[in-house]
């Protein structure tokens, strides 16, 4: 800002000229400031960012909306916004990193964080740029389970966006049809789960008109999401202390037997129908072809688009997972982090962090568009009445808080594929559970060994 000299050398400085000068200086400042700010903005070098995320009918448009708003407010920044199917994003990012065509910023699914971080592919974030005073202030704003996957050695590598738990969505009308009370009789342990599912099933010879419960079987990711809590509640674990895959120990076999029992023992599910049909796995539940389905929080818009009657009359509700002990069911949780490519140039990294701060600055708006997908952050949304008024929001939040994480491992892709194949073998070809799980564990161990060798 240039200061207009109130007077030059030889002019007589009278009070008048002084006042005039100050007025002129003030006017100049008032006029000059916006002019020079615009000039400053125009002088900022244009930045082009590439940003990738996963497709979801509610989540992706909201992120896109925030990105567009950011671009409006920061005209020198353009963002090339791309999205990929949920199951494909990780692969595309892998190949992108390998070929040097990875985006500058992207939404990382939580289970891939170990892989990216282990290879040094993510840039550490500047928490102060994100609006936090310190590392501890940042981590304090999240449940430790969520933020643990994004931090390493005192540095933050991801800004957690959504983290949610799965619920058991039940069709209350169908419960009532078979004489069950949806508020009291929803299954709280595995035995009850199987029996309730059996009661809700309607068969027509070898065909199922209605399945009591349905496991989604079309993608490895869903296999992991569904089996994870079953394994943990039965006392099993994915890897033992030495890093060996332990899904085939006694607890794992018990867990898998429970999972398989719905179809095999109770006859309430048709695994062959699940595969290669609806890409939207909850479609069958929405179309009332099955009575119960484990799902991420389902937005009301999704229900409306497929089954207006269900939404209008409200004959659905989420309940907690069945547990080994009655009422002690836990769900599976996973989430997404906003991350930055370590190889992006510094200006782009900084611009991205500004973008992320902006995206995360209005979480109530996020809830409005994407409810009930719960957010990872503690602050900025939970107290808002809009949140509290959402139907069944307490169940959804409880699922998130009580849930157990998908395993964070560098061989996640191999683990997921191995489990997926194993479940197919068990459910579709009557494979022996112990033998199949042994194969799965062996496969994962091979992948771990190969990874360690580099």
């Amino acid at each position, binding site marked *: 800002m240039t200061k207009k000299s109130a007077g030059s050398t030889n002019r007589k400085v009278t009070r008048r000229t002084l006042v005039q000068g100050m007025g002129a200086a003030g006017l100049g400042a008032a006029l000059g400031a916006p002019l020079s700010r615009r000039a400053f903005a125009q002088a900022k070098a244009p930045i082009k960012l590439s940003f990738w995320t996963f497709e979801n009918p509610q989540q992706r448009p909201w992120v896109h909306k925030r990105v567009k708003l950011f671009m409006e407010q920061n005209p020198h920044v353009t963002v090339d916004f791309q999205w*990929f*199917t949920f199951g494909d994003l990780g692969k595309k990012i892998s190949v992108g990193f390998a070929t040097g065509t990875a985006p500058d910023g992207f939404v990382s699914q939580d289970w891939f964080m170990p892989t990216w971080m282990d290879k040094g592919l993510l840039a550490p974030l500047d928490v102060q740029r994100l609006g936090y005073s310190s590392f501890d202030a940042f981590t304090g704003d999240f449940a430790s389970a969520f933020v643990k996957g994004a931090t390493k050695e005192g540095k933050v590598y991801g800004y957690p966006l959504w983290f949610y738990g799965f619920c058991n969505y039940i069709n209350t009308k169908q419960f009532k049809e078979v004489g069950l009370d949806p508020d009291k009789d929803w299954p709280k342990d595995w035995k009850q789960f199987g029996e309730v599912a059996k009661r809700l099933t309607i068969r027509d010879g070898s065909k199922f008109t209605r399945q009591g419960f349905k496991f989604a079987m079309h993608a490895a990711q869903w296999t992991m999401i569904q089996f994870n809590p079953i394994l943990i509640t039965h006392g099993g674990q994915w890897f033992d202390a030495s890093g060996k895959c332990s899904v085939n120990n006694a607890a794992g076999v018990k867990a898998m037997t429970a999972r398989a029992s719905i179809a095999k023992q109770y006859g309430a599910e048709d695994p062959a129908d699940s595969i290669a049909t609806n890409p939207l796995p909850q479609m069958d539940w929405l179309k009332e072809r099955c009575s119960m389905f484990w799902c991420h929080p389902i937005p009301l818009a999704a229900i409306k688009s497929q089954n207006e009657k269900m939404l209008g009359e409200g004959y659905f509700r989420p309940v907690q997972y069945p547990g080994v002990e009655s009422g002690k069911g836990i769900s599976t949780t996973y989430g997404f982090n906003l991350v930055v490519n370590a190889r992006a140039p510094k200006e782009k990294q900084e611009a991205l962090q500004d973008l992320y701060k902006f995206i995360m600055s209005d979480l109530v708006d996020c809830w409005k568009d994407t409810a009930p997908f719960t957010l990872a952050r503690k602050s900025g949304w939970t107290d808002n009445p809009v949140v509290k008024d959402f139907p069944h929001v307490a169940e959804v939040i409880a699922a998130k808080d009580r849930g157990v994480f998908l395993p964070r491992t560098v061989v996640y892709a191999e683990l997921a594929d191995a489990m997926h194949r194993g479940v197919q073998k068990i459910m579709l070809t009557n494979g022996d559970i112990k033998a199949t799980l042994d194969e799965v564990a062996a496969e994962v161990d091979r992948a771990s060994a190969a990874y360690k060798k580099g």
Partner: protein
Amino acid sequence: MRYGQKGSLRRLWAQSRRWLGFIALLALTFAFIFPILWMTSTSFQAGEKMFQLTTEWIPSVWHPENYPNAWSRANFSQYFVNSAIVSIAVMAGNIVFCTLAGYGLAKFRFPGDRFVLLAILSTLMLPLEVTLVPTFLVIHQFGWINTYQGIIGPLLIDAFGVFLMRQSILAIPTDYIEAARIDGAGELRILWQIIVPQCLPALAVLAIFSFRDSWDQFLWPLTVVSLDQYRTYNLGLVQFGEDYGNPPTEQMAIAVLATIPVFVLFWILQRSVNKGFGLSGLK
């Protein structure tokens, strides 16, 4: 039995056999084409009809809006343009280079020509599926990931086309060529005015099949394309099926649209293709 009776019986038997054969052939044909009919009929159905327990061959309620709906759900105009660019380029590349190479191998003797022929034919054992990883690395070295030339590159010439053109050109009497040379015609003129007109049927076959093969390409674009603006319709169609909430009947609508260009091209080239296959003798 009098001769006349026997003759008329035999004729009757022969005629009924022909009509029986006709019906049998019709049944066989229907057995082959019913999936195409099913695809078309399903593309006009509502989404719910897909997994009903009985099939409705003629839709009771027509839903032509499946087509514009499906089209608007993803960037299909871009995808089909990309596929068209790739397929036309590959078709052109094959026509040009396979004809040149076929001619060179059919009518010219130079040192090592036998070896060259064998070498070219042996690439039939090196399809993209086998060379996928290193071809990807080569394209990456050229900086052609996520570009049109990256998709077109490895598809540009197919050894099968060389073989086809060589077979076709072999049948052209060499005297014509020699006479033209003696008359002082240049090699390129001979190629353009003598060779090409005589192998038009083979060119038609080459055109339709190279177009069809690149129109079908999935694995290679899947490997080399990650950005939306370069996706071919194949990638778009698979992604469409995996995205939330897209009715499978709309997926069938896009599939029908994808089928049309190849059918149209075949219909245009049909007579030449039949000649090229040597089917002109068919009744």
